[in-house]
Each structure stands twice: as structure tokens, then as C-alpha cells.
């Protein structure tokens, strides 16, 4: 594969384009990264430096006070562990449910398919709203359980449709041969379709994981027990300025120090960011599909 790939790039114009393209994308990458570097640098800076310098990528005096403050809170550490577990388990469940529903819908001869798809698409533009959804979750007895963070968002219609479209594009011959071997659709999905769909599944694993990870409303509304809370409950409370307390003149409490805000952002963002490279290797494997087809 490598040799043929190279041959199609090696023209003078192609090389010139490569240079420009590399330069351009590196700039794009840096622009994307810089503000985050500032957040990281700020999390290691002293409050005095944060107050006087407006933007920097390296702190003058190095300080880990902010991190010490965060990690001495047992509640924060517990929330971090909880969030990682809920995200891992939740993403798996959501992905399986979505793939299971996407597969039958990818069969254009399935009766009722268009009605179901229309109903699915309708939910993308209209939802019952916060209070009715809460009432449903409550009536199902899911309050104060981690299911409440996973099930109400189990299938994202957008993800469902993209995965369904992906299944549709898979070569039909593969399934035919599975059928000839006597496999039913369930077995075909599990042993033929899903392994072939790794790039798209990896993509949506990331989407789902980020969805659960960043979800703030569900734990707020569905979990009364603060020992069950996830990271976003902390992040939110730290980063959102307490407007009301200023209007009320309630200044007994200082707003959280800027450095702590930054440190919380770093701690809450890094794990999910580190999750990505594990998925990326599956993205690359997507290349193989063409080969299989040949």
C-alpha cells in the first residue's frame, strides 16, 4: 500500500502542495492548541501572575498549589473515578444499543423502516423538554442511579443515522457469504459487520464518551446524593461565576482562584483527551476496508 500511495504524490506540484498543506495544518494545530496551553500554564502559575499577565504559555514562577487544592478534596477524586467508570460502561451500552438499531434500519427492504427513521429524525428537532423527561426518569425509578446518566441519552439520533449509512455502504457480498454459511442476521452483525465498522464505531464511541463526560444537567437533575456526583458538577461550580452572590452583595466567599479554575479544567479535560489516541488506531484501520473489498 505504501509504495502505490507514494507514487501518486510524487509530482513537483504535488510536493509543493504538500509543503503548503503541512505548514497550513501545523498553524491550524497550533492555533487550536495555544489557548489550552495557556490554561495549562495558568494552572501552574501563581495568582499574582495570572492577575497581571494577560496571556502566556509559560509561568514565571511554577506553583502546584492549585492541583494540591483540588486533590486534597476527597470528593473531587471520587468524582473523577466515578466519571471514568460511568463513561466507560455507559459508552459501551450506548454504542451497542445504537449499532443494534442501526443495522436493521440499514436494510432497505425492511418493512416499516422509513416510518421508524422519520420518527427518529423527528426527535432531533423536538424534545419534550427538561421537566417531562425528568418525570419519565423518575417514574422509571432511575433517580439516584447511574442509569439516569446513561439511558436517557442512550441513542443519539444523529449517531444512529450516520452509523446506519455506514452499514449501508458496506459491500453486500460480505453478508451474502455469511448467510450462505448459515448465520442469522444477529450473528452476521456481531461477527462480520461490527468488526468491519471499527472506524465509525470508534468515532461514535468518542462522541458518546464526550457526551457522558461533559454532561452536567443529568447529574444535576437526577442525582440528589452528592457522593454520586460526576466531575462536571465540580467543574461547573468552579468555572461559572456566581452571578447571584455579586448581585446579593454576598462577598463573604471569594470567587474561586483563577489558578484553581484552570487546574480543574485541565484535570477534567485530560482524561477524555487521552482516551482519543486509543481510538485513533482504529480510525487508521478503516483503510483496510478497501482492501477487504478488493
Amino acid at each position: 500500500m505504501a509504495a502505490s500511495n507514494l507514487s501518486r504524490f510524487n509530482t513537483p506540484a504535488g510536493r509543493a502542495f504538500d509543503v503548503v498543506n503541512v505548514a497550513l495544518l501545523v498553524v491550524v494545530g497550533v492555533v487550536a492548541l495555544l489557548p489550552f496551553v495557556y490554561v495549562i500554564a495558568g494552572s501552574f502559575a501563581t495568582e499574582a501572575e495570572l492577575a497581571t499577565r494577560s496571556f502566556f504559555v509559560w509561568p514565571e514562577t511554577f506553583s502546584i498549589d492549585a492541583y494540591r487544592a483540588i486533590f486534597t478534596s476527597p470528593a473531587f477524586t471520587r468524582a473523577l473515578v466515578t466519571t471514568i467508570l460511568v463513561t466507560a460502561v455507559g459508552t459501551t451500552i450506548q454504542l451497542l444499543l445504537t449499532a443494534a438499531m442501526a443495522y436493521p434500519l440499514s436494510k432497505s427492504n425492511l418493512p416499516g423502516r422509513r416510518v421508524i427513521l422519520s420518527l427518529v429524525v423527528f426527535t432531533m428537532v423536538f424534545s419534550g423538554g427538561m421537566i417531562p423527561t425528568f418525570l419519565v426518569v423518575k417514574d422509571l425509578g432511575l433517580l439516584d442511579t447511574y442509569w439516569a446518566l446513561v439511558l436517557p441519552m442512550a441513542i443519539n439520533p444523529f449517531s444512529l443515522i450516520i452509523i446506519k449509512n455506514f452499514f449501508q455502504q458496506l459491500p453486500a457480498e460480505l453478508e451474502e457469504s455469511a448467510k450462505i454459511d448459515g448465520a442469522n442476521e444477529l450473528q452476521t452483525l456481531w461477527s462480520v459487520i461490527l468488526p468491519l465498522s471499527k472506524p465509525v464505531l470508534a468515532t461514535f464511541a468518542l462522541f458518546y464518551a464526550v457526551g457522558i463526560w461533559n454532561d452536567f444537567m443529568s447529574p444535576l437533575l437526577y442525582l440528589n446524593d452528592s457522593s454520586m456526583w460526576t466531575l462536571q458538577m465540580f467543574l461547573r461550580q468552579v468555572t461559572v461565576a456566581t452571578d447571584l452572590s455579586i448581585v446579593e452583595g454576598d462577598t463573604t466567599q471569594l470567587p474561586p482562584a483563577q489558578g484553581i479554575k484552570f487546574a480543574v479544567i485541565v484535570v477534567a479535560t485530560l482524561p477524555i483527551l487521552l482516551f482519543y489516541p486509543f481510538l485513533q488506531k482504529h480510525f487508521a484501520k478503516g483503510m483496510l476496508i478497501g482492501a477487504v473489498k478488493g
Partner: protein
Amino acid sequence: MTRHPSRAALALLSAGALTLTGCTAAAEAETVELKTLSIMAPYLVTNAPQPDNEIEQALEEVVDTDLDITWVPNSSYEDKTNITLAGDDLPHVMVIQGKTPGFVKNAKAGAFWDLTEYLDEYPNLSTSFPEVQKAASINDQVFGIFRARDVMRASVILRKDWLQNVGLEAPETTDDLYEIAKAFTERDPDGNGQADTYGIIIPKWPGMIGSNSPYDVIETWHGAGNRWTERDGELVPSFMTEEFLEAVQYEKQLIDEGLVNPDYATFDSAKWNEPFLNGNGGIIIDVHSRAGQIMGLLKQSDPENFDRYVEISGNLVGPDGDLHAHPTAGYSGFLAVPKAKVRTEEQLRAVLEVLDKLNSEEAGPILNNGIEGVTYELDGDLAVGNDDAPQTLKDDVLSYAQLGTNVTGFQGYRPKQASEYEQEMYDKRLEIEQADLEFAEFDPSAPYVSETYVSKGAQLDVIVSDARIQYLAGQIDLAGLEDAVERWRSAGGDQVISEINELRDAD
């Protein structure tokens, strides 16, 4: 083709509705004896208190009842309140943060007990500040035990070293304030030879008109009243007065002459102290406790000289030569008892019994100061904070203070200041507050809740508060500001005025 899906959707809907009625049937059995008191309360710090912490245990001992507290982040309290009211698992007591339209609607629909007739029977709930209780009521119906706050808090905080450098005294009048702001901007108060300073620091204000912003305070000083004022026997919003127009012109002069930070429309209020500490600006118009906050920060960065930077002053005399002091509402929300949980009068009395103990002399110090020997030590009748206490416990003290009502006066120990200078400043503050209180201009409309205001108020108020900033920024002229007030009136404001006056006359 959309016809078919919608028909199918209807079928699904009715199926869903059937299941719903099936599920909600289970109602919980209620016992009259109160073993556990459940409370919903906001917390403002980073960490919510953990169940069964030391403070909660100490409180449970005093009130002789188990406490089950649901802590909700302050930033999303309103959402959680509405969700909780919509469900059927309510706490016995809910902290309500103010007379928001949402609360008023629920209260008028009968969601909460009217406590007007009950509170006086309980020694610790019978308030010594009936006028504040009235202000916290909805048209004289008391739906909650108010959480008392200092009434007189407005303060001008200035850079003391700058004042000395330009040879001026702390201000007493609004003219003095202008003088000082001008000197702080033009006469190089930090002596570095550069024109890199300005006078007053004003942040982007999160509230609307009449929400204790520096603008509102300046307008009160000019005699425009406090949110509402009485003119010719009729209550009118303060922005309909001559004095208001005078005050905004004063504000505009400050801004036009560059005596205020140029980004006053966008500057983050969480960073309000920074320009003061960094020596960019030298005046903050806010509440007294901010001065203490600033001194604390200075003490960290410059422990040797921290007593050289801060000067405070109280309310300022307006151009009419009179002192119109700007008070707060005197309360910050209240503790309400939802009827959906507390169904009978017996149950209500059981709840009030516990709340009475929660506001007792024994419970007060726990709510306000924490645990003696752990979070504070007693020195005479002053509390000395214990710096070695774990941070989570210090945070917990601040959270439990949210449950305190102090309706019979402050129940905790005042904090002892760490140094002589701080004590001096604190005493000066109390003195100023005491002196200003006499001249407080209270909001005469506070107890009255107008129907129209509940349904449209937020929309209406934003018209005027935006126009004020637009005028200050030069986007519109004074006539434009007056037009905005006219728009406020025609869009429903006139109705609000007549409703408020009717309620007042009927009172």
C-alpha cells in the same frame, strides 16, 4: 408523507400516557412524627458538604432530629427548584433564593405554606425585624422564614496610598468622588510617571436595573430612590425620576472623561478586585465585605505593608446636600415549606418546631461559625478562625450558613480580625454602617408583587438597564434613554405601576 409519522406518534403518545398513570399511583405514606427533616439548599463553594460531616452531626444533636440535606450548586439552583416542585418527592424545607417569578407563581398556586399566622408562636422564628419580614412577603403573605442579611452594606473602597499621593481625603459627597476619580486618573497617583491609572472600577453587572450595581447605588445617592420611590403620593420606579437622569449624566461624565475602566460593559465581575490590587484602578463601589476580602488578599501578597492600601467610606451625600443611603433588601431568600410534602397542620408544626431549634442560640454558632475548637476558637465573644482546620470543613461552614435565618438577630459570633489594623478597619466599618442606617432609603415597593411584573418584569427591566449602558457608552443620547423609559411604560410598565400602587393603597 408527514401525516403517517404523526399518526404513529399519537399512537405512541397515548401508549406512553397509559403507562405514566400506572406508575405515579404509588404515593408514600406520611408519618406525623418527624424523625428526619429533609432540606434542599444551595452551596456556593467548590465542594458540597458530605453527608454526616461533623457540622451536620453537631446540628442534629441540637435539633434532636436527623437532617437529610440535598445540596445543589448555586449556579443551577432555580432549575433544580422547579424540577423538584414538578416531581412528587419534595423535601420538608426548601431554601428559596428570592421572589423570582417562578417562586411567586408556585406560591400563588399553593405550593408553600402561608406561615404568616404561625411564626410568632415560635420564639426563635418570631422576627425582631418585622419590616424585613414584610419586605420578604408576597403582598403580606409570608411564605418563608427570611434569611437575614446586613441592611447597610454600601461602601466606597479606595486606594489609601493613592489618596495620600494626590493629597485628598476619603470622599463624603458625590462631588468628592468625582474629584478623587479625576485625580486618580490624571495626577499619576502611583507616581510612576505614566498615565496608566483610572479612578472607578466597574464590572459587567449580571443583574438588571435595581440590582445593587454601582450605577444603582450612585442613583440612590442622587436621590432617585432605591428601585422604587414615592413621588406625589404615588410609587414610581426610580428611573422615572429627575434625579435618575441627573445621576446617569454624572455617571456619563465619569465615563466620558476616562475616569472609569473602558471595558465597564464587559469586564468580568469575578475579577473585580484585580485592577485594584494591580494598581490600575483605585475605587470600587460595592459592599463593605469586599474591603475585607481585598485586605485579606493584600495580606497574602504583601504582609509587611498591607495596611497601607485600603481606605473605606460609606454612602455619599448627593448633589442636593442630603444623604440617601443605599440599603440592601435586608434578606437573601427564605426557607419555605412545601405543601406537597408537609400535608397537615400537625406536620407543619413539627417542621417549624425543628426550624425553631435550628435558629436557637445553641444552633446559631454551629451554622455561622462551625465547631468550637475545630473551625474556630472563642476569644471573648469573638470567633478566631482556625486556619489549620481542613479546607473541606471550612467550606462546610460556609455551606451550612446558607441554612441560617437569624431572624431574631445574628446568632453566631462575629469574627475577630487577625490584626490590629484589620480590627480597626472592621470597627470603622460597623461605625459607618450604623451611621448610614439612619438615612437608609428603603424600597417602598418591596412587599408588593405585581401580576404584570411577575409575567413580564424581567423583559421590561432589561429595556431600561440596557438603555442605561447604551447611554453611558454613547450609543444613544439622553432623549434615547427617556424613550427607553417610555417603551418600558408602554410595554407593561404603566400596568406594573398601577398594580403596585393598588396593592400599596390596599395595605
